[in-house]
């Protein structure tokens, strides 16, 4: 079968670009390299220097910082002898109490649920791929992590809080709290996880565990679509 051979030339991977569907060969990448589609320029491959240990460390750190960011007050306000403070969840809660339930849910999802789910999924994936037999559920969890990543908007939230701070600073005295610092750290940690994590590497390991590997091929990418 000529088609079969086209799918697994030795050492070279054939991928279809997700941007324009062009089939192309991606040569073996050196750590730190990226490959782009020759026709539309979309990223078709990337290899990171340390695909498992470094992202795992960053994910663990981010989970701790995320807990702090959610528990510690973001900012405190004092005006004429009165004090008020808020946390991330407190912001969504006040929206809910004021009758804006849809907005409150969107805020809670983008600021708390999505980032937390992303980190928990990534932790599960990064721990599971260290085993010699990668369990089959890893694929589904990584897929969930990818979809959560798109909705985690901590950096947008941080800028939003800063704008709110400056607006309120006209009227009262505001102090940024510990939570704010934690959000600032998360804004650095999240992209760091994304950059150091190598999804292709994980997918390749899952393929080994999940599709029975032919004895001679290296990272066989084979499988029949089931209707």
């Amino acid at each position, binding site marked *: 079968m000529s088609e079969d051979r086209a799918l697994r030339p030795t050492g070279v991977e054939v991928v279809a670009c997700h941007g324009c569907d062009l089939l192309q060969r991606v040569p073996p990448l050196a750590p730190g390299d990226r490959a782009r589609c020759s026709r539309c320029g979309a990223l078709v491959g990337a290899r990171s220097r340390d695909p498992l240990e470094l992202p795992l460390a960053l994910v663990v750190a981010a989970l701790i910082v995320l807990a702090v960011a959610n528990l510690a007050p973001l900012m405190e306000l004092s005006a004429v002898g009165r004090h008020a403070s808020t946390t991330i969840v407190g912001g969504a809660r006040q929206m809910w109490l004021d009758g804006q339930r849809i907005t409150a849910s969107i805020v809670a999802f983008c600021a708390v649920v999505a980032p937390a789910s992303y980190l928990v999924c990534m932790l599960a994936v990064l721990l599971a791929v260290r085993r010699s037999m990668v369990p089959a559920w890893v694929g589904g969890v990584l897929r969930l992590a990818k979809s959560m990543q798109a909705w985690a908007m901590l950096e947008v939230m941080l800028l939003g809080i800063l704008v709110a701070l400056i*607006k309120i600073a006209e009227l009262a005295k505001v102090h940024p709290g510990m939570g704010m610092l934690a959000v600032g750290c998360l804004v650095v940690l999240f992209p760091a996880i994304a950059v150091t994590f190598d999804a292709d590497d994980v997918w390749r390991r899952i393929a080994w565990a999940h599709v029975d590997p032919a004895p001679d091929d290296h990272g066989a990418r084979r499988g029949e679509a089931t209707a």
Partner: protein
Amino acid sequence: MTAGLLTAREAGLVTCETCALLLRAQAAHNAGHCPRCGGAVESRRERSIERTWALVIAAAICYLPANLLPVMVTSALGKTEPDTIMGGVVFLWSSGSWPLALIVLVASVMIPLGKLLALAYLLLAVQRGWLGDRRQRTRLHRMVELIGRWSMLDVFVDTFTVALVQLSPLMVVKPGPGVVFFALVVVLTMLAAESFDSRLLWDRPLEQGRADGD
């Protein structure tokens, strides 16, 4: 056909959009689920154009109340004052923080509008089979996907202003009816950008029937 260039569809293959696994296509449309990650595998996303149009139109409808209705209502010492998105920009500008005014203006007014226009343009380009720089259009789609989240900025500004300024009876800020429309514009345009299948930009209209022959 361009000599030497073959798409997965032309080769009778489909790729999983989540994990990039290449599979042999079985049916032209419903190709099933990826054996590796469980995601839906489709050669081209089903009804991508119709779905994206529906989301773009819904977002465009929400765009008007989002900008016309107040997003925050401030009441201080018996006076209540509604605040629209543009009002917030003007407030920041006149209070001297023009870099912030610019950020809010770009994130809240220009990005949502730009996204709607860009998506409508991309959809028309596919439907009318417009010739032109398709690489540029794919890049435009990627940019819309990348930048879209930033228009959530104003929702967060409103949320945290409301949460913090609760000094009743001195001064209380309540969310206005516009904020939910604004949040919906952001969510709907993000979903629209996600449901648009940029591979359609590269399928020439004449080839639609070809790939089904297998």
